[in-house]
């Protein structure tokens, strides 16, 4: 039994943190929200050099052929830094959907960092993210997978997420249902990992803030009420992460409990990130309620991701379904 990251995965995480920590991601995220995708696309290229888009593209198609745990490692880092763009769609979902179809050729470009894929998959994920920044937009529905175009722009609670209603343009091609299920599970898992990352970032910002912010003559971090609130966030994140990693192991093993555990991970990660954001907002006070503070990026991202790739209530229902199916 081994339940830890490999040395390679740990150094991958460090490399991602090193790159993103030095890259002024908040500025890129704000620019992305304002419609200037240039800094965000530069980030995309840099992350492609580290192999992020290629992670689960099969080696035969120019990718790395990595594991769900590699994806989890990458998305926790993307979430921790608030990186904008259709990353879940491109990295976690597209390889499963496109492999074996006439769109398979896109994957080589994707792995290189030259293509960016976005997908709407109603009813769970009805809108496509960042169509303007994507090179390929798809609609996945009961008819199969089809190239699609935007019919309408919508506004997300997270300014850096540009959502679109889409309609099919070309003819839909059939996609293997197992591949679809696996792709959607990996997308939900990547989303969960992002939420853990965002939660970790909000906790880190809060800890730094309460240590220096003084009220009534002392750092507010000396007050037990503040300490206890942040300790509870630590606990929530510490127990969400093993669910995310465990689900990655089960997906890798193609285990029959994988779907159940992906859903459990999404629920726990959403709840933990939510607690982190409410607590961060509370300890930051009014400054945390401003868009100018970087905390806003993570608070709003966490809220948006709570509804992406399955809501907590959909995922709870799926957990229950799996648990009771055999009773």
């Amino acid at each position, binding site marked *: *039994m*081994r*339940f*830890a990251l490999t040395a390679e995965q740990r150094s991958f995480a460090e490399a991602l943190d090193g790159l993103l920590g030095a890259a002024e991601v908040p500025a890129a995220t704000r620019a992305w929200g304002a419609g200037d995708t240039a800094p965000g696309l530069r980030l995309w290229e840099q992350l492609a050099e580290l192999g992020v888009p290629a992670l689960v593209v099969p080696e035969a198609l120019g990718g790395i052929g990595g594991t769900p745990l590699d994806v989890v490692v990458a998305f926790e880092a993307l979430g921790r830094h608030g990186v904008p763009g259709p990353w879940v769609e491109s990295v976690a979902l597209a390889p499963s959907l496109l492999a074996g179809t006439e769109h398979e050729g896109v994957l080589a470009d994707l792995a290189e960092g030259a293509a960016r894929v976005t997908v709407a998959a109603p009813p769970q994920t009805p809108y496509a993210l960042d169509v303007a920044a994507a090179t390929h937009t798809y609609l996945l529905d009961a008819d199969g997978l089809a190239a699609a175009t935007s019919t309408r722009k919508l506004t997300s609670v997270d300014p850096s997420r540009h959502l679109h209603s889409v309609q099919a343009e070309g003819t839909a091609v059939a996609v293997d249902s197992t591949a679809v299920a696996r792709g959607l599970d990996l997308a939900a898992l990547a989303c969960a990992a992002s939420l853990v990352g965002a939660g970790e970032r909000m*906790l880190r910002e809060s*800890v730094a803030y*309460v*240590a220096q912010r003084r009220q009534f003559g*002392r*750092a507010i*971090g*000396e*007050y*037990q009420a*503040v*300490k*206890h609130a*942040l*300790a*509870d966030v*630590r*606990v929530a994140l*510490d*127990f*969400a992460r*093993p*669910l995310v*990693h*465990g689900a990655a*192991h*089960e997906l890798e*093993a193609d*285990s029959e*409990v994988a779907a159940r*555990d992906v859903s*459990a991970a999404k*629920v*726990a990660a959403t709840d933990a990130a939510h607690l982190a954001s409410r607590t961060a907002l509370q300890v930051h006070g009014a400054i945390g309620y401003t868009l100018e503070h970087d905390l806003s990026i993570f608070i709003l991202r966490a809220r948006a991701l709570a509804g992406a790739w399955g809501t907590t*209530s959909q995922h*709870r229902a799926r*957990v*229950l379904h799996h*648990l*009771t199916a055999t*009773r």
Partner: protein
Amino acid sequence: MSLGFTEAEEAFRAEARAWLAENSPGRLPSMDTEEGARAHRDWEKALAGGRWSVVAWPEQYGGRDASLVEWVIFEEEYYLSGSPTRITQNGISLLAPIIFGHGTPEQQERYLPAMVDGTEVWAQAWSEPEAGSDLAGIRSRAERDDERGGWVLNGQKTWSSRAPFADRGFGLFRSDPAAERHRGLTYFLFPLDAEGITVRPIAQLDGDAGFAEIFFDDVFVPDADVLGGVGDGWRVAMSTAGNERGLSLRAPGRFLAAADRLLDLWHERGEESPQLRDDVVDAWIGARAYQLYTWGTVDRLQGGGDMGADGSVNKLFWSQLDVDLHETALDLLGPEQELRGEGAVSNGAWVDDYLFSLAGPIYAGTNEIQRNIVAERILGLPRGDNRRSGA
């Protein structure tokens, strides 16, 4: 579960499962009653006979030299089989690690085998009326008696779990009143029927005498029953506090088994309330999270890491999970939720376990103390000067 267990680990699981299926008595009467304590001792004897009492201990002391992974596997199987909470827990989980680490060969020989089969049940005697989670405030005294070669104990302990039906106790006494609060404490072992000891049972919230006050009136303890060095009791005791909050008392198997029973209850009741349905799912998710967290801890410990302050994170999680899970079960029972004993669903097991869960956030260091530990030692928040040392 398919997290890559080895064939040997799976075989160990199968062997434990088969033995428990054959031998487990199921639920026993409360161990905090005379009849229950007897039944629990019999069960401990049976466990020891099958060499399942202390699987992680050396074979010399009745164990199987099992790895940490195997120990957690055993605990999972133990609780899934519906077997009772262990009456030997204080001894095996709290005292034995100290005897292994700090005891003399004579103490190891004298005390370990007797606790393995329930022949000697141990009561822990940490708390005092004026020192709850604050162990450094201990006032009970130990005075040197050179003539007899030992120490004379005076004072009072309270909230002593298992004391009403236990044989022996262990706890800290102030052996050097001039030393600083943390220093000058010595760890003693003593028989509960020694001359000068009075045990006064205290009825708990659940009605059973799960704990007691212990009064010491010139109780003589020979040097042979000092555990670790004189004046070194604080350090010796702290070396296992992490165990108590961490792995030893609340193995994940217990919560998985309870979540499993909760799902059965939900299924039987056909409860349609979305809130209750979500609470049931969250209880299971919590138990699964705890199981996976534990595998992570086990992996780290086997790799040479230590538990450190993570035991506090652990305790905060399981104690809250335990209460939430049982509150959900009671909600599912509707108006029957207040019933105990005969005529109640499962003879009132859900209420009994609920009342037991309510102690979780209080004992082994209150959750307020645990949150301070997490905030200060893990998050690195400032200690502040409004408190003395605490924890």
